[in-house]
């Protein structure tokens, strides 16, 4: 819905200004129309188109770059499908699918520099991929062996945040720190080895109803924080449609906070890349924050525990399949660049290898040591936690004929 499509402001004196039943019902259905403000550089039909505002940020996307983006998207989709299958086969407790959001995530992820920081939600497997986090590193969260295995400071990719919206404030604080340290707005004068930095924060349409997202916007504006708020509007917050979260297109909210907001076709990897590059550059150069609304669609369930057939129409998914983020790139590569089948076959084979590796890794994952839970509760030793660890180990050691796997309890010479 664009500004012009929306009902005008309600006028109490004019009952016709209220939305009628059809308009209300329309709001309860997902929409596949991004409206005239949608930034698009690659149409669903695979045609490369121009947007004068953002062309410069995708000038370098030649056939080589595009095949690379295609490969990224195919691989993360394949890893995602394998994660889903592993859950269905009882190997994972839950999986959070990204199906349909590959372009939104790869476009943003490939716009980042190694020195930028990322604060993800919990569906950002594609962004994680771009930060050099192997899909196997995600499995522990969903198999229940850890809460996140990568080093967030080394990867510059914070651990998944599950409480909706919390990370918008954490990202803003981090970005304030970047500014306090003078890592913003130096341009070509930035010291060697420490270029200007930005932070990118990922969240969904549902999160925009959370106070922490609002507060993140307020704080980022107050401190000119170099943070790109990257909202993947996938139309659904589990079962609740966008219309329950907002009356206005989400990108328009930025204006109320005093910074720019852009709606990009979230299924167009070139546009997501270009808009993200622009936004990150704005932030690095001191013109942050920026809001990006990547207009996309959650083609699968919220998680493997969800059942979308209870709340949305199947024809909606069929509409969005026509806008598939990967297919449009494939069509473009074939039609405009003459890329041959052997390339696509090669990527498909690589994807299958990745899936097999993911599966093999998953099945071989060791159980965490039973006393793992007592470790790293605090940075400094806690007498309370250590006493409980001792009690726990002594309790298990009392079962002399049933040693506790993995803890060293019962094994001679250890404990």
């Amino acid at each position, binding site marked *: 819905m664009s500004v012009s499509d929306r009902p005008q402001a309600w006028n109490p004196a004019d009952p016709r200004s209220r939305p009628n039943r059809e308009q209300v019902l329309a709001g309860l259905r997902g929409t596949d129309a991004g409206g005239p403000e949608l930034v698009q550089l690659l149409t669903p039909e695979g045609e490369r188109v121009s947007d004068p505002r953002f062309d410069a940020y995708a000038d370098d996307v030649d056939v080589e770059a595009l095949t690379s983006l295609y490969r990224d998207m195919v691989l993360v989709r394949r890893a995602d499908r394998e994660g889903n299958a592993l859950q269905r086969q009882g190997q994972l407790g839950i999986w959070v699918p990204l199906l349909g959001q590959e372009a939104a995530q790869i476009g943003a992820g490939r716009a980042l520099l190694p020195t930028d920081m990322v604060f993800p939600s919990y569906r950002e497997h594609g962004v994680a991929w771009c930060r050099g986090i192997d899909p196997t590193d995600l499995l522990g969260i969903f198999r229940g062996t*850890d*809460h996140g295995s990568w080093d967030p400071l080394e990867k510059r990719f914070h651990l998944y945040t599950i409480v909706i919206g919390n990370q918008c404030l*954490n990202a*803003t*604080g*981090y970005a304030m*720190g970047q500014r306090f340290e003078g890592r913003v707005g130096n341009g070509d004068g930035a010291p060697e080895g420490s270029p200007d930095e930005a932070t990118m924060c990922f969240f969904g349409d549902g999160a925009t109803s959370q*106070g*922490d997202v609002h507060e993140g916007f307020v704080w980022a504006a107050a401190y000119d924080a170099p943070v790109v708020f990257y909202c993947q509007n996938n139309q659904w917050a589990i079962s609740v449609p966008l219309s329950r979260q907002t009356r206005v297109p989400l990108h328009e909210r930025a204006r109320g906070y005093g910074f720019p907001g852009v709606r990009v076709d979230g299924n167009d990897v070139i546009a997501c890349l270009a808009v993200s590059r622009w936004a990150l550059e704005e932030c690095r150069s001191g013109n942050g924050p920026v809001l990006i609304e990547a207009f996309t669609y959650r083609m699968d369930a919220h998680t493997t525990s969800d059942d979308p057939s209870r709340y949305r129409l199947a024809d909606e998914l069929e509409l969005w399949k026509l806008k598939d983020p990967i297919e449009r790139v494939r069509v473009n590569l074939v039609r405009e660049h003459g890329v041959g089948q052997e390339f696509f076959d090669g990527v498909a084979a690589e994807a299958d290898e990745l899936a097999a590796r993911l599966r093999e890794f998953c099945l071989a994952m060791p159980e965490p040591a039973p006393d793992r839970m007592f470790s790293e509760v605090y940075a400094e030793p806690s007498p309370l936690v250590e006493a409980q660890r001792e009690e726990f180990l002594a309790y298990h050691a009392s079962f002399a004929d049933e040693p506790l796997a993995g803890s060293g309890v019962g094994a001679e010479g250890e404990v």
Partner: protein
Amino acid sequence: MAVLTMAKALNDGLRKAMEADPRVLVMGEDVGKLGGVFRITDGLQKDFGEQRVLDTPLSESGIIGTAVGLAIRGFRPVCEIQFDGFVFPGYDQIVSQLAKVHFRSQGKVPMPVVVRIPFGGGIGAVEHHSESPESLFAHVAGLKVVACSNPSDAYWMIQQAIATDDPVIFFEPKRRYWEKAEVEPDATPPPLLRSRVLREGTDVTVATYGPLVRTCLDASVAAAADGTSLEVIDLRALSPLDLAPVYDSVRRTGRLVVVSEAPSESSVTAEVAARVQQDCFHSLEAPVLRVTGFDTPYPPSKCEDDYLPDLDRVLDAVDRSKAW
């Protein structure tokens, strides 16, 4: 040696911590130009600048949430929550992020953040300005919770809390801000997470913290006049509790009264009572008694003298313990 109010001692302690480490930031509502509503941060922004003493937007979740992000970046934020009853918008960030990031990251990301909270009643304030929510934080794994009770402890404990690599919820007894005592800047302070015997005695042990330490010390003087010897222990650390001195004392006196302004149910005083009955069962001559606020919302201030434990209620519990 200097005689300072607790407010000034905290101010001096913050200043020393900021001088010692340029990564230390002070952030909160009105902490800059105004110096905080209690003036605890008076003059710090003038001397350290607006980038180290932040007058923040009016948003407690924002204060904690951005402090978490700043800590990830390597800063050591000291957050001021203006009043105890205003911490709850920030409670989500405290429980969900501040307390858990270190554990979630398997020790890769420490959270050296201090959250200062003026707490407790007795100042005739309107609703939400007199609460004692410490148990709500002591119950959360990943947080350390402390309460100071006098200027010297305030001076040292705030510096020790800032130097801690874990999140510390730092409770300050607001009705004691203006009481004076000696502070020795060259002394060697006891560790942060230690309780302290403030007055030795032989008949009944009284364990307390924060604003009621003064009350219990006064009670010990009154009791002495009646021939009863109270041993008064300032718990200081509410999570983790340091109960060894309490156990040691109870093994000698056989009697314990635990005193706090907070409601009694599922509280710090309840935890002390449970642990003492477990560790000192055979030494106890009487049940552990508690003197606390009531399990009601904090009342209108005209009722607070009846709500708050005072010297007479402490002595009444001492008498009941002795008569058991």
